[in-house]
């Protein structure tokens, strides 16, 4: 359940290579010597997929053990490299969020970008870190998870309530026995009191 990279590209509708606007990559789990080549590889795949995503469409491409999710909206394309276990929906909602944030921060200035922009955008980096857990990105997933936990808790509660019921039953029996015994006791005491007044 890992996000390896998040990228924002500008995709031209005429099919030329997209221009990279922002990237955030987490290649810590590759060996030290492989990291730069992995970064290049990610950029290349991103450019290819971005070129082939028509505007207004979402796409998911399977590549070896990664899934590349891309969402192109009005020429601004945001892509995420995730592994197979990451749920598709949360990835698209994450891409939506990143897209909105990017447009809020940079407005329309990206439309004129021609060269790759390699300046780090801190929001993207912290998004990469924060959203490693898909539940963070996708509110639906979070709600579902909390509801499931609540359901488990409720099941346990019901079990304990049933045990309480059993104990209450045994208590009721014991208390009725006690009340019968005390009644016998009372009658006995009254009887001994009645008969031996003379003696």
């Amino acid at each position, binding site marked *: 359940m890992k996000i390896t990279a998040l990228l924002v590209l500008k995709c031209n509708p005429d099919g030329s290579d997209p221009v990279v606007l922002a990237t955030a990559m987490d290649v810590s789990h590759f060996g030290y010597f492989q990291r730069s080549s992995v970064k290049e590889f990610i950029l290349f795949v991103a450019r290819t997929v971005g070129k082939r995503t028509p505007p207004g*469409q979402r796409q998911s491409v399977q590549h070896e053990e990664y899934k590349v999710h891309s969402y192109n909206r009005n020429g601004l394309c945001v892509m995420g490299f995730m592994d197979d276990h990451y749920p598709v929906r949360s990835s698209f909602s994450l891409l939506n969020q990143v897209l909105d944030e990017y447009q809020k921060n940079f407005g329309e200035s990206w439309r004129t970008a021609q060269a790759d922009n390699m300046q780090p955008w801190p929001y993207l980096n912290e998004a990469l870190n924060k959203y490693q857990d898909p539940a963070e990105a996708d509110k639906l997933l979070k*709600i579902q998870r909390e509801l499931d936990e609540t359901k488990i808790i409720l099941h346990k509660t*019901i079990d304990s309530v049933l045990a309480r019921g059993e104990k209450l039953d045994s208590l*009721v029996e014991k208390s*009725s026995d006690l009340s019968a015994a*005390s*009644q016998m006791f009372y009658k006995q005491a009254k009887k001994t009191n009645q008969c031996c007044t003379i003696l």
Partner: protein
Amino acid sequence: MPVKAAQTSFRDRTFEFQSVAERLRKTVSSQNGPSSSSKADEQRSAVTLQSEFNRRASKIGLGIHHTSQKLAKLAKLAKRTSVFDDPTMEIQELTAVIKQDITALNSAVVDLQLVSNSRNDGISSDTTSHSTTVVDDLKNRLMSATKEFKEVLTMRTENLKVHESRRQLFSSTASKDSANPFVRQRPLATRSAAASTSSSPPPWANGSPSSSQLFPRKQDGESQPLLQQQQHHQQQQHHQQQQQQQMVPLQDSYMQSRAEALQNVESTIHELGNIFNQLATLVSQQGEIAIRIDENMDDTMANVEGAQGALLKYLNSISSNRWLMIKIFFVLIFFLMIFLFFVA
């Protein structure tokens, strides 16, 4: 004459009669000489135009008849759809075929009207009124056929909805895939039906006042571009529908998964509500048990207190009885002393 353009259960021999009359006229005119040949030509051209008109009208009537037959078949198919074994493909094919027929018939009727308007110079008013009546009749029949088509389509959508609801009653998760394609296609189909029905009223709305007016040339010019506009519009819509049909399945999976997740959440909340209700029932039942225990304990305490009181009294009576016994002993000893005194 209008009867001729209706469903032909009898043979149409007017054409033969007219060809025979022409031949006779030819022989007569060949006898008369070339002076009347031009008049015969005129008459022949008038006759050919007239027969052309009639031929077209009969063809259109036949086409309308076939279309209404296909429509009846479609209505039967749409009525008998069950939850399983849905003849969807046939229904869709039939729908497409009927739509094509209706559009073709529509254009044919407009052509017919043009033809009838184009040869209106120098012919008797009876022929004019006859041709306009024929054209109006054909238009009316086409309109009724289109209305039936629309009704059949709405019935089909309702049937589909009923099936979907029934399917969801019995199987909770299975049918979400099948629901969406229908929901996607229905708007396209009804939109196309609405397009065809919206395009067919305009020629009538424009056509009938034009036929009643006495300026056929002007209306010719108007109805021609109108026809072209309709064709262009229909083509555009068809193209758009095709494009939308392709793009919609791609967005569908994303939207579908979102819809599915939402439904899961909703069902989970529902179950939670259920569990809470059960919890409340259990707790209220146990509350009653607790009250019973409380009453039992109260009874026990009352009993024990009573017993304690009795025992205390007993104790008191026992301890006080000693005094009485001493007094009785004293009385006895007194009696003994007296008895001893008497004896000794």
